[in-house]
């Protein structure tokens, strides 16, 4: 049950007869009569309105949408009754699904079906759902309407934005430089034997494989009458492939912290996505685990487009838990993922010696067999605070910020002493920084 603005206007119009008929009829009874007329008209309109309960509703919503992009959520409204269904419809999505428009007019003739499209532009990662569909069916006089909320389950998975994919082309170009696809065929660290092929002009003479050339046979010197020209064979090299990269994302309480309008967890996800895309193209295997006290998400044994799809889908619903991360479980987790030497990237903040004690205690177990890289987000606000010495509170803030930076540096130094590497950067710079580290390892053959 609901009334419209027209009903309010009708009630207010009662002022006209109350004043105009004054003298002829008693004004009080005119008022009562007018109210009765209004009520009767509203009841009549209510009785003539189509039933919103009988309406058939079906959904067609995109399964997933990348954060900041838009998707259409369509609702098919079937009117099975014999009256025309007109009124307002609202598809009640969660606020952060960014549904527009919030309410739409509805006009479905008897026995027909209409599509109602709501555009979703989510501004938060995770699974968004629609709580209900509310229909307000107005009567032919548009004075009153019947209203019902109907549960039509609808969900959409909002994937991480992967804004750092803009860094991917430049990193892939760097990777190709390492790779044999450019004319780098010198044997060195981080390369492995690829193939033997005939010498063409422009090849480095140092890469000629004399033994293979001899085995191939033929006359040296070329255009002699004794036989066919001697063909020189060269060895080609390519960067090592089929290495393993394991990414452990810390989703504990420290990941809930927001830096520059992005939680640490989101930054970690961005770094993971960029690194995974890059390492996958480079021919390495990528395994990802999101961990605090238990494994919140895990992606293993996937390659190519499947890998990124699985990663984004796994990450989508994960929010930081307000728990202290149990680092002692990480070595076992890594052991369960691989036995061979791998690059283990741990995305966690390095803040103070106190909060990273258990991480530091666990680290030697990993560095014994693996190459460990810790990707930590630093807060640009801390650096800015150290430069601001304007007034008394600002000086104390600068001191506290310096102290925090010093703490972070001490932890980083401790990690380095334990055999790990640290890469730390501001939220937007961390994903490319981690990828650059990976490329540097690859170039140096440390994988």
């Amino acid at each position: 049950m609901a009334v419209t603005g027209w009903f309010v206007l009708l009630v207010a119009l009662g002022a006209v007869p109350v004043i105009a008929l004054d003298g002829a009829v008693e004004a009080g009874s005119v008022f009562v009569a007018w109210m009765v007329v209004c009520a009767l008209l509203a009841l009549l309109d209510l009785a003539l309105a189509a039933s919103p309960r009988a309406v058939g509703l079906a959904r067609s919503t995109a399964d997933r949408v990348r954060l900041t992009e838009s998707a259409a959520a369509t609702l098919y409204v079937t009117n099975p009754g014999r009256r025309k269904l007109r009124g307002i419809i609202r598809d009640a999505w969660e606020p952060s699904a960014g549904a527009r428009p919030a309410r739409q007019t509805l006009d479905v003739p008897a026995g027909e079906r209409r599509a109602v499209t709501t555009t979703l532009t989510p501004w938060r990662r995770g699974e968004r759902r629609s709580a209900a569909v509310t229909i307000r069916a107005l009567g032919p006089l548009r004075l009153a309407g019947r209203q019902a909320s109907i549960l039509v389950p609808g969900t959409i998975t909002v994937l991480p934005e992967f804004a750092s994919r803009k860094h991917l082309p430049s990193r892939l170009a760097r990777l190709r430089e390492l790779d044999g696809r450019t004319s780098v065929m010198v044997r060195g660290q981080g390369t492995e034997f690829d193939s033997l092929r005939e010498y063409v002009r422009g090849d480095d003479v140092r890469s000629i494989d004399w033994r293979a050339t001899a085995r191939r046979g033929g006359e040296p010197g070329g255009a002699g009458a004794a036989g066919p020209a001697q063909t020189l064979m060269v060895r080609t090299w390519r960067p090592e492939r089929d290495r393993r990269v394991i990414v452990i994302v810390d989703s504990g309480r420290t990941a809930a912290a927001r830096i520059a309008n992005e939680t640490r967890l989101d930054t970690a996800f961005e770094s993971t996505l960029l690194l995974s895309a890059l390492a996958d193209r480079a021919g390495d295997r990528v395994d990802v685990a999101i961990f605090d006290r238990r494994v919140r998400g895990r992606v293993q044994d996937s390659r190519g487009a499947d890998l990124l799809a699985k990663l984004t889908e796994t990450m989508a619903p994960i929010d930081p838990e307000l728990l202290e991360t149990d680092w002692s479980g990480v070595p076992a987790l890594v052991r369960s993922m691989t036995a061979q030497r791998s690059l283990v990237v741990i995305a966690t903040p390095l803040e103070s010696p106190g909060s990273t004690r258990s991480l530091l205690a666990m680290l030697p177990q990993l560095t014994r067999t693996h190459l460990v890289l810790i990707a930590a987000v630093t807060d640009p606000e801390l650096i800015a605070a150290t430069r601001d010495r304007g007034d008394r509170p600002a000086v104390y803030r600068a001191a506290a910020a310096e102290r925090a930076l010093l703490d972070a540096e001490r932890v980083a130094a401790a990690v380095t002493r334990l055999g790990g590497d640290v890469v730390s950067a501001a939220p937007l710079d961390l994903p490319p920084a981690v990828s650059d580290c990976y490329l540097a390892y690859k170039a140096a053959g440390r994988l």
Partner: protein
Amino acid sequence: MTTTVLTPTVGRAVRRSLFWVGAAGVAIAVALGLTALNGVATSTDRWDARSATPTGSLALATVLENEGIAVELAATRAEVDAAIDAARRAGDAVTLLVADGRGLLDGERIAALTGLADRLVLAEPAPETLDALDFPFSTSRLTAGPIDVGSCTLAAAERAETIDGDAIVIYETEADERCASDDSGAALLSQTIDGAEVTVLGVGEALENGAIDRAGNAALALGLAGEHPRLVWYSPSPADVGLVTLADVTPGWVNPLAWTAAAALLAAAFWRGRRLGPVVIENLPVVVKTTETMEGRARLYARGGARLRALDALRVGTLRRLSATLALGKAAGVDDIVAAAASTAGRDLRATRELLVDAEPANDTELMRLSESLITLEQAVARRVALDDDSDTPERMTG
């Protein structure tokens, strides 16, 4: 697809709210019952024969009617005349009680009432009014009861013996009969004017519900008002004396118009207030600001006045940055950095060491000065190094 309707049907909504509707009904019934039992105050006028308030006179009027006296209520002079005419036609003697609780009648109008009835009773008239009648040079004052009236010749007063009240009006005037008097005045006056008895009752409280049961008040009131078989109870209304009230000048549609406006407002509230479906609840993740620990520590420093600790933190930061700028490497100690910085910036070594290591700030002003100096030193070194690099580059190229 199976769908569930969340909104309850009208029947279910009614059934669900049945208890509260019932409870409200019971509450209203109880309230109505209590009102019916206790009566409701319709008017707060003094001596209103229909009012059950302490200053009303419903008690007296009811008792008189039960005793067989025909009590006629009159609000205007015309009604008074009509009632007295009716009594005369019936051949009954009549008492006219002027219960002017709001003091609307002036002397002239009261004087015009003399001679109409067999007895005219005036309840607490103003002394000026008495001047217009045959009571010359009246003044009045108030006193508190009880007053002995047993020696009165007035039959009603004699029966009453004593009258009581908190504010009894004592009139100091000349009269045929003065009763309930103290030294100089009387609360009860009686005089024959134009062949009719005029009684002035200074004990207005004797007529009121609240005080009628005190001492002999009831006897006096009943004796005066019930002397004759008919009583005209004259409580003049403002319109009767030509006064214009707000209700007289407002047209009849004003109140219904206000009700219409209220109804429209109610409808508008329902129109705007009716939600289109339930509010959607969303669980949001906890988000913490990272700078909170830093801010907390800063406040701790400031409150505790940890100036040296704060300055040391600033110094360590400066030393780290200087070491990086001067490319001194990790093995460089504080002394090395101080010496390198002093020589690069062209400053006195002792002063630089004082700034970077030794100085202890005695107050916040000094702390701020030192912190400013640290920044200046850093900038000076950085500028110097940048200049050196620029001037070095061509040499290296040529060399």
